[in-house]
């Protein structure tokens, strides 16, 4: 077997070092944030969690980030995407949805930027109804359309410029909008730091 052992040995030790640095140490660091940050975050409700699952299923993360950079790195703040993200923003996020691509805008505080349910439903049904230059795919399969004079249901939405055409959101669509509206990462950083320091020393 000649000198294969050197490569086996070297290979194992480099990957172990990498696991130590990139899996174990961050795990310990972040668990401090997880324990201390819970008081400033509210967990998702059931429908928000289901909406989150829909967000994952339809791959929203491939175009939308949920991480805001510091003004030194990008114009995120000037686009109205809120303050820079901190680790305690993600305590209840599993899997994480940070994303690495901005074909679409960041959604960290979309619930603050677009608080209207109707806006979200119309936008999900056909983004170009509201944003002419959008290249986001529509999700018409999450909706039913009904042609009728009066509102067919409590949650039906009138489609603009289309007389008597109503939009009926499915449960999936309602949950997804619930989740979108829950995205309001606005806790001030001062609060967060105070909370972290109350428990253990801030290790960052």
């Amino acid at each position, binding site marked *: 077997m000649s*000198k294969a052992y050197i490569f086996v040995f070297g290979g194992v*030790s480099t990957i172990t070092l*990498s696991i*130590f640095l990139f899996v174990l140490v961050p795990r310990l660091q972040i668990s401090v944030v997880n324990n201390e940050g819970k008081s400033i975050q509210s967990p998702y409700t059931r429908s928000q969690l289901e909406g989150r699952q829909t967000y994952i299923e*339809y791959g929203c993360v491939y175009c939308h980030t949920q991480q805001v950079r510091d003004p030194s790195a990008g*114009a995120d703040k000037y686009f109205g995407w809120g303050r820079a993200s901190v*680790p305690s923003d*993600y305590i209840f996020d599993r899997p994480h949805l940070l994303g690495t691509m901005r074909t679409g805008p960041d959604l960290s505080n979309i619930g603050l930027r677009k608080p209207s349910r109707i806006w979200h439903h119309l936008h999900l049904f056909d983004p170009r109804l509201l944003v002419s230059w959008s*290249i986001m*795919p529509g999700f018409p399969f999450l909706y039913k359309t009904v042609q009728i004079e009066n509102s067919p249901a409590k949650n039906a939405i009138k489609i603009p410029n289309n007389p008597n055409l109503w939009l009926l959101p499915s449960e999936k669509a309602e949950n997804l909008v619930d989740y979108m509206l829950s995205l309001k990462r606005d806790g001030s950083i001062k609060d967060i730091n105070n909370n972290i320091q109350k428990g253990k020393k801030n290790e960052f």
Partner: protein
Amino acid sequence: MDAKLVFLVLTFSISILGMFAFVIALIQKQVLVPDSASKSIFGKNEIGLTELESNGNISKTWRILDQSARNPILFFIVSSVIWLVIGSILGLLVSLKFHQPEFLGADDFLTFGKLRPLHLNVIAYGWLSPAALAVAMWLVPRMTRIPLQNNKILYGSGILWNFGVFAGCVGLLYGYTDGLEWLEFWWPIDILLAIAGAMVAIPLFKTVYKSKEKHLYVSMWYTICALIWFPVLFVIANSHFLHTGVQQAIANWWFAHNVLGLWVTPLGLGIIYYLLPKITGYPIASYQLSLFGFWGLALFYSQVGMHHLLGGPIPTWIANLSIVMSAGMAIPVITVAINHHVSTYRHFHVLKDSVVLRFIVFGAMSYTISSLQGSLHSIRTFNYVTHFTHWTVSHAHLGLYGFTSMVLFGGIYFALPRLMGTNFRKQYLINAHFWIAAVGIIIYAVPLGIGGWLQGQELRNTSGSFELSLKITMPYLFLRSIGGTLMLISHFLFLFNVVGILKSPKDTVKS
């Protein structure tokens, strides 16, 4: 807490002990290799002879080794080529949706967000991994000089692996996803893939273990380590219960970048290190340098992943560590580049005769360019522009297509006639594949890189708007679809050629 501490101490001590042992091995000259060892891949009287893809003058020694595990290797190759065609059709659909958002948009299964991960997973786990493994299975007997041991296991592995990829894809369509980029396959499927992967490793490791060769050629170092690294990465990253919050993002990108760095890159480099000297007929330029390049890759590449999260909510020390390591990657990349390009330069004329060498040289050049590009845009100044843009997509395709896939095309075109003992006479079809694919990836990657850069500038423009950053990319996204179409056409040709080689008449063997 206690269990975590135990793991912490354990991994730290193993890695430190490992480094320590490595230094001792270095001092005792266990690690250094004689330059003459670079000739170990040649048979008697083979040095100085150009070896073309048509296998007219192959010696009997090679033929026996090649055909020792022929059928399982063929299974891996053919299945991976089919996945490649499927994966690139998906890729093209995804690309078209960028400038035709309504295109096939009314159906749940064909929405962008489902096809995009499908494309990535089909290419990564359906095409790249099994194709690279197939070429490795062909190389290992040649370098250890014994037939592939226990190779019947490979049938089971191939079937299980392909079933896993298929089931994973169906799962993604129905919403069964782990939701993490590069790790989308639902976790029960990951278990299947891990078992199938282990079943590939058994025959390969056993062959290495049984070999009586005094020296293992450089391609083997890369292959052995890749086979150790990937399973570890795959299992740890897919154990989702271990990870939480931002740390999960760290583990996610640690894995995703290591798939490239510690899996497809070493396997691809192994193929270049073998085929470049083999085809030209002369050993690699500097064998000592290849050693340097190898250990550099092992150390640096395993720690670069966090440049995917620069500017994000991760601890600063870990981001900085990855930046340093990414910049450090320039060292192994340049040493490998010197080795490859000097070897090519010395025997440039062979490119006229060997189409396979064109694939290999194109791959080696793409490796150098995309790796240096990677080092560069890991530095904060550059990263703040290129982050979150199509530049990254362009870079990824330059690495995984321009480098890895091109090298795999070359490797398969070289290995397949030898496995079959056939001689494929329509070399112009292989040549056509090369040129269409090469022009395709250039039209894909160059404009998209430019578009991504402009997009990044707009995302930094404090007086601009998001709208501008999107509109500026549109012409480049259209060009990408054209490049992608060419790539897809070349893959149909590839499938056609592979079938052609399989159906060619048997060749006579020189004894």
